[in-house]
């Protein structure tokens, strides 16, 4: 009897444990997968701008308890003053970075104050930066940068210079001055690398040069400017050079700020060649609070994620959401396999429990053969024998179920702590379910033994056995 109780108890323990883990695992796995990075991106729609307000609005479409983190990024090229070198800088929110990129490995610490930066390992190696060292960063506004406010490309009296590849691989250099309206006031072209009798004339041909005066940037090569005859390639290079011309120091002052390095970032990825600074500092440097992208880590299944992304994209006029498919897909497929595995193991365990309980009850019946015979001789009907054993079985199931429900939680907790490194929430509904299943299993296991008990001949008590 004790063996039957134990086997039901163990069966119920494994059942309750596995179901608990199974219920909890999507959450656990979700968290595990979240450590591989963001699974959703928020981007501006075509021709729109992403900023903090738009991002906050989009985030409202995702339940707070499912949103693990949302990290905004703005990417800009910055120059390092000490060296003639430029690199990508990312403005971000350092409180969110560890949530969406838990794999970031930091030597030192994340910046907490303004004027502090996190430097990628490869940059740090190149420039010899260490935690605590300082670096001066310069933002050089580009006149025709896509990110720049169109107004800034028409800064009054700005001096611009640029270059482009012309005929035969030779470079064409331009320098131009804008007037008070921001249109071209004068233009100088250095076409010394071009064929003197064709492209080379660009720097002297008055009629050609005259066309540029009063034009607004950017230029469109066919509409605004007639090409120098016999020098189409050079003419196109001139327009390109003007359109990509940058403001010189004389016109718009570059912003320079001093930063302290608080940490060196190792990721094994491209982030190692970035410098990270706070969005506040980025805004001080560039004068714009615009964002390029926000990385989101959401704890939800693939279908749910898709629903959130669709809701964000449809309801917002300015932003769209995109899933990082690689992560969400592998998550779904692992969960699917896990479900099948848990189902299979549970089935096997229940089957084994049934066999064990059935065998034990069978032994109990043959052990109590005489007593059962006596009870029948004393007038016990088949029904009351059935009831007695079924009652016993159900009682076993109840005890085992209670035991299993409690031990199962402990079991799941131990497994969870050891495998996933996190604890589990108690599922209150699981206890009654475990008890009911245990009782059902116990009752089922008793069917054959009961049949055997009912078949016992009461006359056996009359023989001298």
């Amino acid at each position, binding site marked *: 009897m004790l063996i039957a109780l134990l086997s039901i108890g163990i069966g119920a323990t494994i059942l309750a444990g596995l179901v608990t883990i199974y219920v909890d695992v999507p959450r656990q796995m979700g968290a595990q997968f979240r450590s591989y990075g963001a699974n959703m991106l928020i981007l501006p729609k075509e021709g729109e701008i992403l900023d903090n307000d738009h991002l906050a609005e989009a985030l409202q479409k995702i339940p707070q308890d499912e949103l693990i983190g949302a990290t905004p990024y703005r990417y800009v090229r910055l120059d390092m003053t000490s060296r003639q070198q430029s690199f990508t800088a990312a403005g971000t929110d350092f409180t969110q970075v560890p949530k969406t990129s838990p794999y970031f490995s930091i030597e030192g610490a994340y910046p907490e104050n303004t004027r502090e930066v996190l430097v990628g390992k490869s940059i740090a190696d190149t420039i010899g930066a260490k935690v605590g060292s300082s670096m001066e960063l310069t933002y050089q506004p580009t006149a025709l940068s896509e990110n720049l406010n169109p107004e800034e490309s028409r800064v009054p009296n700005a001096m611009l210079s640029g270059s482009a590849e012309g005929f035969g691989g030779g470079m064409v250099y331009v320098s131009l001055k804008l007037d008070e309206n921001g249109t071209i006031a004068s233009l100088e072209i250095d076409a010394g690398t071009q064929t003197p009798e064709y492209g080379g004339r660009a720097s002297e041909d008055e009629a050609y040069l005259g066309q540029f005066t009063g034009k607004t940037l950017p230029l469109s090569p066919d509409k605004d400017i007639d090409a120098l005859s016999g020098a189409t390639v050079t003419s196109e290079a001139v327009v390109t050079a003007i359109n990509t011309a940058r403001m010189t120091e004389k016109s718009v002052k570059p912003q320079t700020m001093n930063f302290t390095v608080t940490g060196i970032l190792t990721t094994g990825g491209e982030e190692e060649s970035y410098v990270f600074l706070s969005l506040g500092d980025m805004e001080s440097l560039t004068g714009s609070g615009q964002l390029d992208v926000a990385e989101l880590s959401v704890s939800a299944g693939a279908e749910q994620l898709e629903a959130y992304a669709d809701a964000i994209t449809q309801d917002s006029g300015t932003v769209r959401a995109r899933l990082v498919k690689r992560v969400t897909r592998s998550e779904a497929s692992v969960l699917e396999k896990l479900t099948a595995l848990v189902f299979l193991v549970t089935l096997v365990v229940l089957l084994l429990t049934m066999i064990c309980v059935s065998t034990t009850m069978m032994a109990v019946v043959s052990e109590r053969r*005489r*007593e059962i015979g*006596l*009870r*029948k*001789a*004393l*007038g*016990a*009907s*088949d029904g*009351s024998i059935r009831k007695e054993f079924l009652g016993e079985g159900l009682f076993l199931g109840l005890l085992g179920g209670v035991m299993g429900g409690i031990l199962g939680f402990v079991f799941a907790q131990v497994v969870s702590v050891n495998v996933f490194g996190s604890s589990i929430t108690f599922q209150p509904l699981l206890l009654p379910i475990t008890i009911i299943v245990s009782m059902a299993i116990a009752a089922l296991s008793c069917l054959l033994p009961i049949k055997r008990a009912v078949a016992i*001949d*009461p*006359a056996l*008590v*009359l*023989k*001298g*056995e």
Partner: protein
Amino acid sequence: MSLLELKNVSKIYGDLKALDNVSLHVDQGEWVAIMGPSGSGKSTMMNIIGCMDKPTKGEVLLDEVDISKESSKNLTDIRRDKIGLIFQQFHMVNYLTAVENVMVSQYYHSMPDEEEALEALERVGLRERARHLPSQLSGGEQQRVCVARALINHPELILADEPTGNLDEANENIVLDLFAQLHKEGTTLIVVTHDPEVADAAQRTIVLEHGKVAREVINENFGK
């Protein structure tokens, strides 16, 4: 008035005729002993009278009902309502006390009533042993508990299978005295035995041999 009547009853196992065309009747209130060597058909007859087996041929009327054709479910009901059984091996439920063992019989019959069960134990002189387990009782005491159990539901017929077979003489006498008392109260008793002394206590002895009634002996000294 006849309580039990067997008409040309046979029980055949393959080639073996355990009972061969047996007829007998037992009146209400009669005390009958059935004797015979092993293999004479005593057990088979006991099973049939005790509603635990059915004859191959013939009729068995118990209280004017033919029990030879009843389903086993109905036989259980009849056995419970009309027959009290006493066994050679006593057969008590070993994890229940004396009074609980008596109450088991009440439980299957109607409702357990501890007071009534204690009264039944008092009749067999064991009221003060009511809370003892079978292992704490002597063989004689156990058999007396079984007598109390057999009579608790006021059966029409008490059927005893070698009731003194495992008892010493003193206890045998106690049990026989109890039977005499029951007989006086009008209970019908059928006692299967191979002990001539036990048979002599009855009014009438039926001797079985080879599945047939060999002879009947009326006890001239009964009640003296």
